[in-house]
Each structure stands twice: as C-alpha cells, then as structure tokens.
C-alpha cells in the first residue's frame, strides 16, 4: 500500500505507471519530490470511484456554484462552511446527504431544488423531517449576483424558465449525477457501455483490455464500475476482486458475507439542460466546460456547423480540453451534442481517454537522466591528455573529440590553420581511436564482405589495405572505411566513428537473418585499441627515431599494414592517409595508448609535432577531395554520384544495393555529381548553399542545379574551397555557377576537380 500515489496510466501487457508524490506535503525539502513507478502486473483492479457532474442551468458560472460533494467535503472533512445559506440543486438522492450534513452542522439550507417530479427516497424524507424545504419537479432558472451568488429564481423543470419565486442564498450545491472514473480501464482499449437508468458510461465487463495472452487484465470495481449504492459497491468490489484473484492464478475460498442494509433511494433523472425548454438567451448562459468557457449554445453551433463527430466537436469548441480534460462535464456536453444531432448518447460515444490521468511532473519521467547522467560519455585512452592540453572538445555521438587545440588565446579558426600548416610542413598527431573497428572472421568471411562492400574484399591480399564502400539494400551509401586483410579468414573493417555500432548491427542482421548458414563471426573491437595518426613529411623520421618495425617505403608501402614493436609498444601500423600526407595510423592495445601518445609527443619535439583535431582532419581531407559520410552523403547519394565507380566491383554478381542502383533514376545521366567548387573571389561558400538554375519549379521557386556539401577555408591554398553535388557536374569543368546567400548577395564559383591539393598523390606515396 502506498499513499499519495496515483495510477497515471495503464499500458500494453499489464504495464502501469504509478506517480508517487513523496514530499509535496512536507515543509522540508529533502529527497525527491516525485517518483515514477513502472509496474508490470498480471491483473489490475481499478477502484477509482466516480466524479460528480455539474448541472447545466443558467448562470452556473457565478462563484459560489459548487458541486454538492465538494460542499459536503468542506463541511464534514474540514469544518468549512462554503456559505451561510446554501441552496441544493439535484437530480438524484445523494445531494440530500449534503443538505442533511449542512443542517446538522448548523448551516441553513433554504431549499432543495429537485428536478424529479417524484422527488427523492428515504433521504428526502429525512431532510423534510429536519424542516428543510424541498421543491420537486423544479429547476433553477436564474442566479442573481455577479462576483458571488446572491439569490436564485426557481421555476417548473418542464418549462422555459418563467416563474418568479426568488430565494436568497450565497452558495449553490449542485449534483447532476455521477460519472465513473473509467480512465485507467479505457487507456489500453477497454470499451464502455451506456447505462440508461443511471445516465452514465461504465466499463463493459465483456470488453476489458486484453494482455499478451489475449485475456482481460483490467477490472473496474465499485462506483468506477457503475455501482452507485453502497450495497452494490460492496457486492461488486467483492465479486470483481475474487474474479481477479482467480484470473491471476490464486485460489478463492467462497465465504458467505453479510449484505448491509441500504435505505431506499429513488432513481436519478437525467437533466442535460435546465430548465428543460430554456431559450437561446438562457442557453447562452449555461456553462458546460467551466475552464474553457464552453456553453450549451457553443456545442449546438458545432453540431449545426457539421462537427458531428464527438472528437471534432471537442476540438471545435475546446470542450474537455482544459486541465480537467473533461472529467467534470464531458458527459453533459456529449448529451447536448447527441440531442442536437437527434442521436442517442451511446451512438455519439465519448472522446478517447489518454494517459496520464492527471498531469505528472517531467522530473519524475526524466528522473536521473540529466546533466552528466543523461548519456554515458565515451572517452578515448588519451581523453584526459586532450583536456589537459587546452583541447576544445566537440561531441561526436557519445564520444568527445578534440575539435582543435587553441593556444596562446588564439581563435579556433587560427588554431585549425596552425595545426594544418604544421602537419603539412612537418608533423601532426591525431587521436583516431574512435574510428570503428570490426573484426570479421570465419571460413565465409570473404564471401560475406563481398556482399557488404561494393568492392571485392575476398581478393585482398594478407598485409594489404583497401578503401571500401557500404550501401544499403536501397543502394544509398551508408559507410566507408579502410579494410585490412589480417589472415586467411580474418578482415579488420574500419568504419566511420558514428557508424561503428550501426554497421556492426547491420552485419549481425544479415548474418543472423539472411545468411545464417554462413560461417562468419563479427566482433566490435573499437574500444580495444588506441589508434593514432602520425601524419606529415616527418612521420617516418619520428617512427624511425622510436625504432623497431621497419617503416621504410620498401618495407611498408602505401595501403599496407604490419604488426610488430615500436619501442616497447605492440603496434599494428596501417600506412593509409586521410590527409594526403605521408601517414601512418598506428593501433596499440588501449592500455598502452596514453604512454605511446606521450612518447610520440616527446620524441616529436624536434619536428615541432602538433596534435590536431577533427576540424583540421576535415579541412585536410576536403583539400584532397576525400568524401565524408554525412557530408557528401545524406541517405540519397549513391557511390556513382561521388565518382567512386572505381570502388564498385564489376566482377561481382551481387552486393547489397547493387540491384537498387540499376533502377532508372539511379542510372539517370542528370544526377547531381561530385565536383570541386572554387569561389572566384576566394571567399568561403556557405555550407549547404544551393546553386540556382534558370527558370522556376512547379512551386514557383527558383530552380536549382546543385548544392554545397563541404566548405572550408583552406590554409594550404589560402582561399575558400568546397565540394558539392552539381547536375552533370564532372562534365562541366570550368563552368561558373551561382550560389545566392541569405543576405541576398550571390557568390560565383567555378566547377573544378574536387582534388585541390597534390592531385597525383606524390606526398602520401613517398
């Protein structure tokens, strides 16, 4: 048993959210205010009671008009009189309890207005015996007062509102009947049925919400189930609970139980509008939704305007859209709508009940998932060194990577420039540990990789590396990276930083669900290694200074790899380059990463070694015209668009995406293709800018013929460079196209080769 806890919602397969208010009621602010309980139940009992309905009568929005149950609670539970003279207006017997309670505590009840001609049962007799005036078959036709109730006028219920007896009072306790709280029963698909006698929607016990086994799992009991008399409530609760115990697999002992005495209550009479024949002037003063100021005439207008569905009428009038979400008066509104449409209430139906029952705090939902606990941060073995050496970090997925290492108060742009110039002229170091590393091994690994990559990977020789492209079955590029053949059955596939997990999952999916008889095993070893790019004309000299493995041009050629020792470190050196310089990417076991980095920094001092960040990496790869997944690709780009036909095997019958790339629009000659863009004025094109073409499209917008995919200031060339996708781009070398900017000016750019720097690859191949 937990007090101050609300069942906020019931969801699929017995899932419930419980919202516990822990210390809202306490002065001390200790511990969490709210807690959200996630409960998985076999069976759920909703004993949520029912809510009293207002009566729809003229001027029922004047302060002092209250629900009879509320007036009674104030008096009985808190000793508060809500008025000196409290008139009671009802269509059922329960409000007589309010009148009797008030009388007992000494508050005057000038009149009980009962809409029923036959009046009430035993409670009415008691009220009369106490000397309270009871008027049967009557209605309140007007409330006097502005800021508070001063008096009422009563008339015959079956009337338009004539009648002139004025009765003084300063509060009206109204009761229009009761609506079972069916929300938790309905959240997960429980159906309701209309009880004509009680004028209420109640759970349909033959259409309860069903769980994973197809059997009912929510049972409403008591007045939540439409039982309004105490005798019935107890009987229903007992029967409901016994059935739930049995459904949950428990044993039930049938014991007899005593039925309590229940004094006679006369049945309720639905009054959806009072007085019965109120004219338009009065109907325009009868409020249904007190928060959103929706009146009878508003709902009638909705029906006339054709908003006949209850969901449409709700949105047209905003009935039930306030913070109480229709708990008070939705049924009253539905009844008005159905009578306007000339339909029965069950034919009109209710709006949908959605969780939560009442609002719950975002803090309880979010819980501890904020600040540093929002997401785990992945750190490379050299992470702390970067932070201690002025790195400006950027998030890359869950990783944090140095964007650049600003020094001496310089700007980020200046830092990037310095890092690039130093790398191109002498020596740079890159922490490339975040690069995805997937080990693919087994007798069928070669066959498998031939299906995954557009290239032929099975023919790659041991000790060699090959740049590979991966496409989805839909033909579009999803990842790229260098693949190294480790041994007869093993390949090491490098993926993009962001692609490590998704490509691993992609491989598992195909192995488990399509080619499950292929003998291949994939392991994601990304975090097992620290990987460092040693880049620049002095890269070889640095490695030779540390000593060990022969890294000469002859012993370790471009696109080759080798295992061995460098100094005291266990290294695997890949001679690959993403910068265009002489470059070695060196993997060491993760635990050796920090020491190895330190040694490279120390030994590199004579070459003025400089660590560089992701921005320098991006600029240098763009200077070389290397594509970046996510810049040059966006899920609509195929390798052919990027002039990467050389990386698509012509010998293979099949690879993922091959068939899709044969579709007519994929082989269309007018696709946008990769080019370099040189601004005539040397400025930097805005990333993502579109090149305009003559004419307009069907929407009247200027036609386009290409867009910028990567754009940087190149410190090497000392001007802006860009890559972009342009219609028929490669055939239009030298042509000048225009890119309008947001400020209205236009930049002219010349179409060039995307390789801006060292087009023959002489620098990386030394």
């Amino acid at each position, binding site marked *: 048993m937990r007090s101050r806890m609300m069942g906020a919602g019931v969801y699929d397969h017995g899932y419930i959210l419980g919202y516990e208010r822990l210390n809202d009621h306490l002065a001390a602010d200790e511990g969490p205010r709210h807690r959200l309980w996630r409960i998985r139940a076999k069976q759920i009992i909703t004993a949520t009671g029912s809510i009293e309905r207002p009566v729809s009568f003229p001027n029922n929005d004047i302060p002092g008009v209250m629900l009879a149950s509320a007036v009674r609670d104030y008096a009985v539970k808190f000793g508060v009189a809500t008025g000196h003279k409290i008139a009671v207006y009802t269509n059922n017997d329960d409000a007589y309890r309010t009148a009797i309670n008030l009388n007992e505590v000494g508050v005057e009840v000038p009149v009980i207005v009962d809409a029923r001609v036959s009046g009430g049962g035993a409670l009415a007799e008691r009220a009369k015996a106490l000397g309270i005036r009871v008027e049967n078959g009557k209605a309140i036709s007007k409330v006097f007062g502005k800021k508070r109730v001063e008096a009422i006028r009563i008339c015959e219920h079956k009337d338009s509102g004539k009648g002139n007896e004025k009765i003084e009072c300063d509060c009206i306790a109204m009761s229009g009947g009761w609506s079972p709280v069916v929300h938790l029963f309905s959240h997960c698909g429980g159906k309701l049925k209309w009880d004509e006698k009680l004028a209420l929607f109640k759970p349909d016990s033959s259409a309860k919400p*069903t769980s994973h*086994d197809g059997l009912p799992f929510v049972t409403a009991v008591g007045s939540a189930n439409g039982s309004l008399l105490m005798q019935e409530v107890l009987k229903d609760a007992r029967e409901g609970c016994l059935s739930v115990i049995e459904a949950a697999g428990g044993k039930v002992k049938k014991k007899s139980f005593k039925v309590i005495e229940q004094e006679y209550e006369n049945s309720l009479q639905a009054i959806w509008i009072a007085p019965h024949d109120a004219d338009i002037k009065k109907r325009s003063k009868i409020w249904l939704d007190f928060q959103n100021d929706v009146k009878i005439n508003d709902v009638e207008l909705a029906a006339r305007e054709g908003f006949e569905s209850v969901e449409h009428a709700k949105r047209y009038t905003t009935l039930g859209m306030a913070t109480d979400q229709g708990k008070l008066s939705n049924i009253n509104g539905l009844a008005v709508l159905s009578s306007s449409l000339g339909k029965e209430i069950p034919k009109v139906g209710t709006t949908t009940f959605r969780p939560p029952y009442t609002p719950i705090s975002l803090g309880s939902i979010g819980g501890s998932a904020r600040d540093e606990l929002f997401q785990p941060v992945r750190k490379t073995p050299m992470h702390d060194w970067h932070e201690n050496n002025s790195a400006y970090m950027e998030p890359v997925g869950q990783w944090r990577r140095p964007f650049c290492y600003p020094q001496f108060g310089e700007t980020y742009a200046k830092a990037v420039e310095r890092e690039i110039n130093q790398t191109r002229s002498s020596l740079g170091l890159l922490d490339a540990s975040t690069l995805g590393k997937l080990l693919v091994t087994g007798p069928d690994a070669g066959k498998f990789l031939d299906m995954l990559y557009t290239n032929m990977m099975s023919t790659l020789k041991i000790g060699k590396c090959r740049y590979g492209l991966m496409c989805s079955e839909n033909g579009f590029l999803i990842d790229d990276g260098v693949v190294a053949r480790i041994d007869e059955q093993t390949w090491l596939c490098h993926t993009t930083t962001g692609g490590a997990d998704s490509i691993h999952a992609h491989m598992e999916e195909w192995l488990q*669900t399509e080619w*499950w008889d292929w003998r291949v095993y994939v392991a994601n070893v990304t975090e097992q290694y620290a990987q460092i790019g040693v880049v620049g004309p002095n890269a070889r000299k640095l490695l030779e200074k540390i000593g060990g493995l022969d890294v000469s041009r002859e012993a370790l050629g471009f696109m080759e790899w080798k295992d061995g020792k460098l100094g005291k470190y266990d290294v695997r050196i890949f001679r690959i380059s993403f910068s265009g310089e002489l470059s070695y990417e060196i993997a060491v076991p993760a635990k050796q990463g920090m020491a190895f980095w330190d040694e490279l920094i120390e030994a590199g001092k004579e070459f003025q070694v400089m660590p560089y960040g992701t921005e320098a990496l991006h600029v240098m790869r763009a200077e070389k015209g290397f594509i970046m997944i996510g810049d040059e690709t966006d899920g609509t780009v195929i390798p052919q668009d990027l002039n990467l036909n050389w990386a698509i095997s012509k010998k293979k*019958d*099949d690879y993922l995406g091959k068939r*899709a790339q044969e579709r007519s629009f994929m082989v269309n000659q007018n696709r946008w293709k990769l080019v370099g863009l040189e601004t005539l004025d040397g400025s930097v094109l805005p990333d993502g800018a579109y090149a305009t073409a003559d004419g307009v499209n069907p929407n009247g917008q200027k036609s386009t013929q290409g867009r910028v995919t990567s754009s940087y200031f190149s410190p090497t060339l000392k001007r802006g460079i860009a890559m972009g996708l342009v219609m028929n781009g490669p055939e239009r070398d030298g042509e000048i196209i225009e890119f309008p900017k947001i400020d209205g000016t236009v930049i002219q750019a010349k179409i060039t080769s995307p390789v801006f720097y060292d087009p023959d690859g002489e620098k990386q191949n030394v």
Partner: protein
Amino acid sequence: MLVFKCPYCGIEADETELNPGGEAHLKRFGPGSSDEELEGYLFNRENPKGVHFERWRHVYGCGKWFHAARCTATLEVFGTYSAQTFEPPKEIIDIIKAKRPGWKWRNLS
C-alpha cells in the same frame, strides 16, 4: 509497452530492450529481379489488422534477432521463434489457428 519472450535467452524482454525490425519472412530480390519484385521486397508491406509476423532484435540483451507472431489489433502475442527459418513453425501456426479460426496467410491456413 509490449513484452516478448526472447527465444534465445529465454528472458521476458520489455519493448525497451528490443529493436523492431519490421515484417518477417521477406524474400530478398537482388540482381536479375524485376522492378516489381524489387519494389515489393524493399517497400511493400502487408500491414495487416490482425495476425502479423515481425522481426525483433534483443539488442540490449543477447543481441539475437528473433521473430514474433502478434495481433496488431489486440497486441496478443501468439509466440516468438527463431529468425533462422523461412516460415513460422507449426506450433505457432497451431496456436494462431486455434485462437483465430479461419485465419489465412500466404499458403498457410
């Protein structure tokens, strides 16, 4: 939030432990197939109201893909089974037939 029993590790897994993988028992069409076959394979799905065979991966658990037979209207789960099969196993079919008389799917009924 749904619950499925992972047929590999036997755990009753909450939906948050799983990744959905769409319709099960699709046939791959590669080079040599017609445009219509490719379209069907890549894009066209049965999307039934009622019994549906679908793929799930126990991604925050054992990592295995499995199949589930589920009613999309009532969320009733008829059973889960290995993803390494071309059609639902007989015991799953029998359960569905008992619970949904007259049910038909492809060549099964």
